[in-house]
């Protein structure tokens, strides 16, 4: 599925200043994997050593926290907009 990822200012130093990215993925683990390959500097800020989403990173699909949509099991829809928001909350793994 083609989705758009919104990159917060804090992360743009790892993305060559790109504020949005287009990706073609089906799930969150696939998305994170793709981001980590394209932008290795982002890796430690996305997932911790155990592969879980970092506690202080929140991920939204359109307006909803992805944890309410099934987390890792959520399958993206064409045109979904994914927003990464660091450190507004001490979240939990998806």
């Amino acid at each position: 599925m083609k989705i758009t990822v919104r990159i917060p200012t804090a992360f743009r130093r790892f993305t060559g200043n790109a504020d949005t990215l287009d990706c073609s993925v089906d799930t969150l683990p696939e998305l994170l994997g793709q981001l980590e390959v394209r932008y290795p500097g982002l890796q430690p800020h996305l997932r911790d050593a155990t592969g879980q989403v970092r506690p202080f990173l929140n991920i939204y699909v359109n307006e909803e926290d992805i944890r309410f949509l099934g987390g890792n099991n959520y399958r993206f829809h064409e045109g979904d907009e994914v927003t990464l928001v660091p450190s507004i909350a001490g979240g939990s793994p998806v």
Partner: protein
Amino acid sequence: MTEHYQLRCRECSRAWGNAPLASCEDCFSPLEVVYELDVVRRSFTPERIAQRPANIWRYAELLPVAPEDRSALPVGFTPLVESSRLGARLGSHSLYVKNDAVCFPTLSFKDRVVAVALAQARAFGFEVVACSSTGNLANAVAAQAVIHGLNAWIFVPADLEAAKVLGTTVYGARLVPIAGNYDHVNRLCAQIADRHRWGFVNVNLRPYYAEGSKTVGFEIAEQLGWRLPDNVVVPMAGGSLITKIHKAFAELAALGVVEPRPVKFFGAQASGCSPISTAVKQNQERIQPQKPVTIARSLAIGNPADGYYALRMIRSSGGWAEDASDPEIVAGIRTLAETEGIFTETAGGVTVATAQELFRQGRLRPDETTVLCITGNGLKTTDALAGEFAASPAIEPRLAAFEAYLGEVTVPVQGD
């Protein structure tokens, strides 16, 4: 750097000086204000503090604000009420209520955090201050922005209580209702803060803002005669207040102002929004977010910003967390009003109801000193009590009518 305080990352410990930062720019974890306690120690003594005005600035050395940036508002120093009647009801021989229902100027503990946040907003040169809020913070920012000459933009869930909406707009603040719950509002504010150079009290000013909550802890200790209680029961929304009371006690002990002793921290949530208490009770390592459904809207944060730290701290203190249903919250409000003459909002009902349950479970013990933190005023959430009290029909303005009325009614006997 001339200040004796600065920001430090809670995870990687990198120091950042003083700046409006939402998180550590290295690892994107939350920031905390740390102090040079050797500098603080020179003047932070009970004797000196006793001579200072009765407001939060009496603890200035442990607040991250330069003297010239403070407002003159007498914020804080609310009563610590010895509550023997409530104690008798709950089963405690040594119970106190920290009554922030009468905090100046907007009747909630949020006045404390905002006093610190707006002083820093001024220091950083912001012209606009903003916040996401479940209501009390909105009121506090709107009122104190007037005093600092700042423009206030307030973002709230659209279904907020009418009194909290009115208590924001009356000060001339711009209120932006958002069609969503607090967590939606908070996420939007993080994005707005990322784009506009505004001082968001609970985003890029959050590390400073949160320090204001410590004054609840300083006051409890001072009002107990520079002594720490055995237990504290604290309502939890984002989970910040409970961690900051803990920090306050730890700082006082480190300075030698109080005798160090273990204090157990007990968190109180509404059952309809209980991500932190659920994690405590189910022994989870991380917080699972929830969709709030509760009358305690000031606590309706499903994705608590400091939940992770609150969870860890409660556990390590030997405390516990519980939650209260909507009917129990209403009963808690009534219990406090009927025993101590204090009318608290729904969050206070949560605290009283939770304390009652903790005494019942034996986690709070009768002979220990327990402090309940009442954080807001009941006049802001009167809709929670709608239908609780039947309206009496009017009687004629004649003595005979009153005598007849007396014969008809049974005067309720409340209390012990």
